[in-house]
């Protein structure tokens, strides 16, 4: 705990930690000082001068250094001029006055000055209604300007900084919040100022423009309407939007979001999601959100949404009633109990997965998780302890990221790990290729493909890196499946678990293992008992398969073949996919925007989401469909209330034992205070009023014996002289069904590619940009060649979900 400093602001006594800025100190006691350039998450800049206040400090005797006393009180000496509250840190005995005539005059003058070149086109501005400049002008500004309107600087109305973010240069007040966010928080300095004086404007320094996955956040913290998103352009006025709490379903971080909805004529009079905004949760996403989470919500409103149950009749899917469809599925599932397979993905909520698992168990079938990554049982043992907050990790702590490209897989974790490194945490990045996190790492371990587990086992040998990890106060390992398949990642997870156990980094807050999963709720699926299957083709062939929230046919021709040989295929999804096309019966499920439930994040935090828009057609929530099918099979499962399913889940899954549905909705005060009427302080981020979630304690924290599961390691493939090894890597913007319907993100997806080292390319006789055919294991695909000299020779990086069905490292041929 740092030293507390006592001061007085507007007569109110305040006690804050040393180093706090006056403006933040004032905020803690409810005094609002107007700010534009200051943001509690950014370093002070002092660029806008709106926060002028009178500051007095106790007078010190020059000779003795003692405080001069007057009538038994310290004599306070005020500076002759106003000072900025956003750059001055508090000191003992300081007296701050924010509402004196002198201070108010200063603030008013600054606002008047900022408005000299502002176009005042609030009626057409997307920020209008939630604009700090509007609010502060009303509160602190003058009613009339002494400046000449004709002298306002005019620029062309809007320019696109990138595909996603548009800039209106006239509206910019040069506070540099966006530039500073990119530099300090995101660590990607892609914005800058150009020109001087009145012509000063923001430019993008990258190609493609505004090349950052955090670009949307700059529109939240922009205190004017200079930066707006192309996605929400003229979408609605801020005051017309309704807000509902939700959880992002794009990756395992589990960012807290707010869905802004409105009835829309363009959508045929439906209530639709107009934009996704971050919701504060300092332990998960702070007040940030990545662009994928912000813009990839369009899939829930896609024209391809399934709205009616369908049964295959004469080779065609025809509409059917819920009763007929569930009855048909139930009959086929009950025919031979051993042949009943439930294949579900981590797209589903905890309650859905619990019901599906119960159905499979009671009916005597198998429950398979559709995933190429293992180790969920290890994270249940030695996952991060309850109370983990990466935002609090810093000096003396260590973070190891292995076989994961966090920037592409879980951007907000990347951001928080990067910031922990900025605060002094020892960041160790181990990967076979260069990733964006390397720049911030203290140690970079570059292993060759196949050596992932060896790299972790080497930590038991003494070295500078292993010492730094072992001696760290707290240590967290992020592991993924970048360059690995199911077996590889399972073995890696066990190795990481052993390492954490050996170095005693388990069972405590800020210590443990985090899986960088492919889907939002893979961890939840593991918790309720779903397990992935190594030989999925064999597991599906000739079976009665119940596929929920997955598109195996679209993902892989091999799985398509296996499913064509299945006895019966029932598909339950929100969208039409290649898998629904081969299905015997199709059930329409509700999207996460239409229902409630809970997800378990990679940090094993269980968080609730709430219904924001009306249900599309006859769709039902997944857990209810499972219950309806179960009923037809003579099995009773709860199907009407998520809450009740959750209670049953709590009673039967040990790790959930301490939870209640209500507990997930609890909130407590967070710093910085955001999302209230004072939008100028934290931006347009929403305050969290609907629940911060609760973290599941790992077995190690419960004081029970920890057994790291041993996984039989298959011989890892290594690049050889004469062979080419195709290795799967993860990409943020891929061809997945959730990204495609978003117009803005679509442009960032790019073409299907494979990456080769220039030597490898030369050996194969291919050039950069050439279209090649790649084939392995019965999979054929076409891709563009990209040259990347940071990867090792003899391998071809093949991104997942980009048209080539790759699940694990495999020997490939290129033509």
């Amino acid at each position, binding site marked *: 705990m740092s030293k507390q400093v006592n001061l007085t602001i507007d007569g109110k006594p305040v006690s804050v930690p040393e180093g706090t800025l006056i403006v933040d100190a004032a905020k803690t006691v409810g005094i609002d000082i107007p700010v534009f350039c200051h943001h509690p998450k950014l370093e002070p800049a002092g660029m806008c001068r709106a926060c002028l206040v009178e500051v007095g400090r106790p007078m010190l005797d020059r000779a003795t250094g003692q405080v001069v006393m007057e009538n038994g009180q310290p004599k306070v000496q005020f500076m002759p001029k106003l000072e900025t509250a956003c750059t001055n840190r508090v000191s003992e005995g300081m007296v701050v006055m924010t509402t004196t005539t002198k201070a108010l005059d200063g603030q008013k003058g600054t606002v008047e000055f900022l408005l000299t070149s502002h176009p005042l086109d609030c009626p057409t501005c997307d920020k209008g209604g939630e604009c700090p400049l509007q609010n502060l002008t009303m509160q602190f500004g003058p009613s009339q300007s002494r400046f000449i309107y004709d002298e306002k600087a005019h620029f062309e109305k809007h320019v696109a900084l990138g595909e996603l973010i548009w800039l209106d240069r006239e509206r910019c007040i040069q506070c540099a919040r966006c530039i500073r966010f990119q530099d300090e928080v995101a660590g990607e300095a892609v914005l800058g100022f150009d020109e001087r004086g009145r012509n000063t404007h923001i430019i993008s320094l990258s190609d493609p423009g505004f090349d950052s996955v955090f670009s949307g956040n700059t529109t939240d913290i922009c205190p004017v309407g200079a930066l707006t998103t192309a996605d929400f352009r003229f979408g609605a*006025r801020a005051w017309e939007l309704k807000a509902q709490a939700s959880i992002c379903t794009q990756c395992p971080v589990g960012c807290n979001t707010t869905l802004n909805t409105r009835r829309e004529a363009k959508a045929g009079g439906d209530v639709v999601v107009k934009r996704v905004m971050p919701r504060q949760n300092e332990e998960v996403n702070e007040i940030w959100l990545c662009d994928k989470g912000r813009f990839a919500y369009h899939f829930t409103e896609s024209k391809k949404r399934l709205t009616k149950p369908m049964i295959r009749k004469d080779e065609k899917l025809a509409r059917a009633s819920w009763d007929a469809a569930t009855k048909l599925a139930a009959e086929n599932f009950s025919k031979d109990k051993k042949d009943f397979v439930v294949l579900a993905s981590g797209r589903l909520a905890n309650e859905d997965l619990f019901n599906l698992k119960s159905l499979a168990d009671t009916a005597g079938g198998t429950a398979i998780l559709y995933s190429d990554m293992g180790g969920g049982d290890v994270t249940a043992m030695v996952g991060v302890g309850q109370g983990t907050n990466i935002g609090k990790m810093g000096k003396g702590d260590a973070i190891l990221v292995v076989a994961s490209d966090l920037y592409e897989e879980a951007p907000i974790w990347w951001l928080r790990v990067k910031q922990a490194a900025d605060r002094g945490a020892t960041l160790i990045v181990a990967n076979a290729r260069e990733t964006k996190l390397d720049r911030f790492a203290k140690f970079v371990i570059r292993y060759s493909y196949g050596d992932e587990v060896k790299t972790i086992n080497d930590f038991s040998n003494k070295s500078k890196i292993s010492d730094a990890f072992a001696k760290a106060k707290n240590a967290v390992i992020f592991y993924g499946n970048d360059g690995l398949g199911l077996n590889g990642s399972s073995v890696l997870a066990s190795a990481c678990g052993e390492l954490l156990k050996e170095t005693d980094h388990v069972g405590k807050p800020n210590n443990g293992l985090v899986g960088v999963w492919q889907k939002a709720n893979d961890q939840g699926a593991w918790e309720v008992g779903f397990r992935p299957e190594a030989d999925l083709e064999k597991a599906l062939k000739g079976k009665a398969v119940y596929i929920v929230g997955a598109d195996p046919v679209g993902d892989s021709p091999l799985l398509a073949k296996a499913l064509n040989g299945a006895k019966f295929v029932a598909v339950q999804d929100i969208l039409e996919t290649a898998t629904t096309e081969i299905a015997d019966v199709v059930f329409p499920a509700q999207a996460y925007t239409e229902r409630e439930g809970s997800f378990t994040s990679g940090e094993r935090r269980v968080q609730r989401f709430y219904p924001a828009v009306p249900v599309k057609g006859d769709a039902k929530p997944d857990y209810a469909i499972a219950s309806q099918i179960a009923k037809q099979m003579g099995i009773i499962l709860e199907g009407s209330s998520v809450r009740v399913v959750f209670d049953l889940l709590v009673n039967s899954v040990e790790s959930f034992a301490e939870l209640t549905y209500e507990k997930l909705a609890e909130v407590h005060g967070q710093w910085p205070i955001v999302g209230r009427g004072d939008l100028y302080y934290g931006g347009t981020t929403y305050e969290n009023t609907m629940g911060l979630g609760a973290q599941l304690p790992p077995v190690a924290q419960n004081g029970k014996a920890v057994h790291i599961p041993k996984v039989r390691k298959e011989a890892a493939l290594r690049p050889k002289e004469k062979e080419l090894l195709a290795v799967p890597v993860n990409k943020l913007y891929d061809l997945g069904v959730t990204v495609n319907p978003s117009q803005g993100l679509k442009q960032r997806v790019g073409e299907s590619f494979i990456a080769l080292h220039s030597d490898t390319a030369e050996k194969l006789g291919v050039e950069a940009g050439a279209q090649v055919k790649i084939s392995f294991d019965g999979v054929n695909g076409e891709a563009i060649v990209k040259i990347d000299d940071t990867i090792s020779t003899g391998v071809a990086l093949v991104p997942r979900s980009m048209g080539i069905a790759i699940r694990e490292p495999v020997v490939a041929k290129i033509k």
Partner: protein
Amino acid sequence: MGVFDPIIELSRGLGETLRSFLREPTVTVSYPEEKRTVRPRYRGRHVLKRYDNGLEKCIGCSLCAAACPADAIFVEASENTDEKRFSPGERYASTYEINMLRCIYCGFCEDACPTEAIVLGDNYELSFTDRKQAIYTKDSLLEPVPTADMLTPRKTEAGVFKRSVPEMKDPTD
């Protein structure tokens, strides 16, 4: 009271009637053949105004909807292009609806409008046979244009109509 008093009173009253009948001007009109002109600040059915060049004044800012105490107005905005321009500037109202059953003719929308696009006109002859008819769409609210080439949307010269809100002028006093 005398016997003739009621007769005197009656004839005095009838005399007044007769005098008015012969001397005073007529105050009733034979509606609907004849229509009375309304007062200058009369608040009748809304009209969406156009500029002299035919472009719509409305920019779809939805401030009228925000000001409306009866929640009678629904606005949805879209983006103008020089190829397909409805109004000056970047933004126009792609949907503009007023529910006349809800409207209380208070004129707040008129006050709120930053471009003087929505004006309460002099049409008071509103009758509907069902509720749907009571919802006036943008087509029915827009002022007619004198010539067909002034209709919106239309193609305009690039870079001319850049501003949505008319430029503010310096105070002259």
